[in-house]
Structures are given as C-alpha cells and as structure tokens.
C-alpha cells in the first residue's frame, strides 16, 4: 500500500518533467565547410585535414566529412584511411553506431576520402567533439586527433 502511494507520487513528478521535443534538422546534401588546418601525425609521415558537412547534428546518420592527406610539404599524399573514431575528450566517451560508418576513397585522387553515416551520440559546442583518425601512409600506421571546430546541434 505504502509503495502504491510512493509510485503514484513519483509518476506525477515525472509527468510534468518531460521537456522539449527534439527538433528535426535539415541537412543540405553535399554542402561542406572548408578544410581545416592540417594536423601532422606524430612521426610526420602524413598530415590530415577534414571538411565537414554543414549543420552537424546528433541523433542522425546524415553527417559526413571529406578527408584529405598530405605530406610535410602540403602536397597530396596517397594514404589508407583505417579508422575514424569520434570522441568527446572532456566527458571521456565516444559515440554509438560506429559500425555504420562508410569510407570511400576517390579513385582519381588517392589522397582524398569521404566518410559518411557519421553518428554523434550527443550535441556539443564547437570543439567539444574531436575525431581520432587512424591512417597509414609511407608504410606507417598512425592515429591523429583532429578537432571539430563546429557546433553539433
């Protein structure tokens, strides 16, 4: 009996609590921001820079990015993209649905890759999310952390 009173009291509290519903975000396909400043791998084997689709949003697979590899002299460098791991360093977590990621290498430009179906598990201000890019070039596989200087809605 006591528990029944307890439950009805608590459910009254939650009913009033559910707040804003998620707003749907329109993503213009193909539209991307500019490539950011290239980040060098620790060994210097390659540099990587990213261009993101506009209107990054959490809770959708509509996000995408272009990846460009270059050498120390900023010349295009053929490279193998091996990993693209989103991470939120401040909170210490990654994202879900990493198995949905799609990597495509441009057959005419082996330094250029497209990554699609990127899922952010939560929104965040500019630079709250980063991506750890793993790639191999000149026979060396390395991981590079690239900032995402855009807000994720």
């Amino acid at each position, binding site marked *: 009996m006591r528990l029944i009173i307890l439950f009805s009291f608590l459910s009254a509290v939650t009913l009033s609590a559910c707040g804003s519903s998620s707003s749907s975000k329109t993503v213009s396909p193909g539209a991307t921001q500019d490539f950011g400043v290239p980040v060098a791998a620790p060994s210097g084997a390659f540099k990587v820079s990213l261009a993101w689709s506009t209107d990054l949003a959490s809770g959708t697979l509509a996000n995408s990015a272009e990846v460009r590899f270059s050498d120390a002299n900023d010349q295009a460098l053929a490279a193998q993209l091996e990993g693209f791991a989103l991470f939120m360093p401040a909170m210490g*977590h990654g994202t879900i649905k990493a198995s949905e990621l799609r990597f495509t290498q441009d057959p005419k430009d082996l330094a250029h890759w497209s990554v699609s179906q990127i899922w952010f598990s939560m*929104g965040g201000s500019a630079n709250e999310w980063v991506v750890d890019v793993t790639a191999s070039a000149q026979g060396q596989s390395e991981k590079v952390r690239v900032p995402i200087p855009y807000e994720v809605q």
Partner: protein
Amino acid sequence: MGRVILGLFCLFLSGNATTLWACSSCGSGGADPVILNPSESHKLYLGLGVQSAFQDIDSQGQLRKSDGPDSKWLLELAYVRRFTNRIFASVVGDLGLNQKHDREQAGVGDVTLNTRATLLQPTMLEPELPQLQLLLSRRFATGRSVNQSREEAYLDVYGAGSSEFYAGFDAWWGMMPVLFGFSYLHGWPSAEEIPEGTLQQGQLQRFIVTGGHMLAPELKLIGGVIADQRRASELDTREQERSSRRLQSLFLTLETLHPEGDNLRVTLTRRGVLGDNRNGVSAWGITLAWMSLL
C-alpha cells in the same frame, strides 16, 4: 553541571536520545544511502527515485539541451549490518529504468559496498562532541556505461563505467538544537577499457556540508550542499583536454526517526547549481525511501 543541563535540554528537544544520533552528513548523495544508528544492528532499505529535467553542462560550463533520457528511475535495495559496536557495513544494488518519449529500457546499475567505523560518539554529557566516522567504500562497475551503450539517447546506461574506491570521514553534531555536519570523500577510480583505448578517470574530491533541525521529536529536516571535483581524465595515458569536472548539488531531506520500527525518508535534489559547473548534468531528483529494522 552546564553540560548536564545542555544534555537534558537535548533530551527534551528530541524526546528520545537515540533519535538525535540518527544521521551523519550524507543523508543523500554520499557514497552510502543507508546508515545505522548506534542502537541498531541491521536494517533493510528500499529506495525509489527519479531524476528528470536534464540539461548537459559542457566543458565551458555552458548549459545545453540534453540528448539523453527524459527521466531516469532508480530502484535501490540495500542491507546494512553491524559487525562490532563501532563498525557496520552496507551493500547497495540498484535497478535503473530510463525513459525518453515513448521508449524505455531497464537494467542493473552499479553495486556498492560501504563501511563506516565510528571513532567518536557523543554522549548526553558531552553533546558538543561530534560523531566522527571513517568511511571506506568500493563501487563495482556492474551497470552498463556510456562507453558500452548501444542505444540512441543513452537509454541503456545505468552505470558509471569504472569501479572506484572511496575513503573519507564524516563529522556530525547531532545532539545540539541545530544539527550540523560536514564530510569529505576521496575517490580513486579504476581504469576502464573503452573502444578508443584505456580510459582513466581523474580522482574525485567530494565535500558535503549539512545543516538541519528536528521539526518534531521523530521528524528530522536536513539540507546541504555536495561539491564534487574530479581531475582530468587520461586516454591511453594522454591527458584529455578540458576534462576536469565540477558539480555542485543541493539536497533537502525529510526523515522520520522512530527508534524501533519502520522509517520513511524523502529527499529532493537539485544537481548542477551554484556557480561554476563543468562536464556534468543538471537535473532535479526526488527519492522516497523506506527503511525497516526487520
């Protein structure tokens, strides 16, 4: 003589001496939800709580719409047992239920073992002495964490991710007309394997300040502040930028203190208030608990 009069005054205020000993600082939000009064040998605890109105607090202290559950329910079951005059221990387990719109999911949370050793116990003759307890706790990461989540909106997250060892103390002046206490807890989390590498959360410092008053001989009202600070985390031994955390919370607890028999407690909490909060969650919470000596 003055002490005796003060002691008698306390006795008069409370109606029953044991009721004044009832609480240590962490009526809520400490490591252990249930404690034993000096006269008790064991107790069963059943708590039902819900948190909602979540907002994320980012590394700059900015509030954001939360992408997580709308409400998180928690059913807590605990058993506490005395081993000696001065030492008792409790085991706490819980079940979580997360809701977002019309979706919901339930699962087990973390399990905690807590021990308290009483170093100092005030008496009727020395009511100005605090009750002083040493605290040792261990949380086991049995519940699914953010980094093990597979569900949208983290609907399947009930645990903290890493196990953690805690040590601290709790000082409580419970025999004066105004109840007062403070406690400190230090946390050492274990490393956690996540898909991106080995995550080592930073050490925790938790400060709790509590004040209160006996509203009636067997009804206690306490409230206070819990201030958590956690140092920066490391991923594969590399310190993660802006990952230190701060969270201040307020709590208000109304509790019955029947010396023999069942007791009820209601706790209202407001997480993420009072100035500078970072890398946390702001939320409202309410917990109703039932405690029985069996």
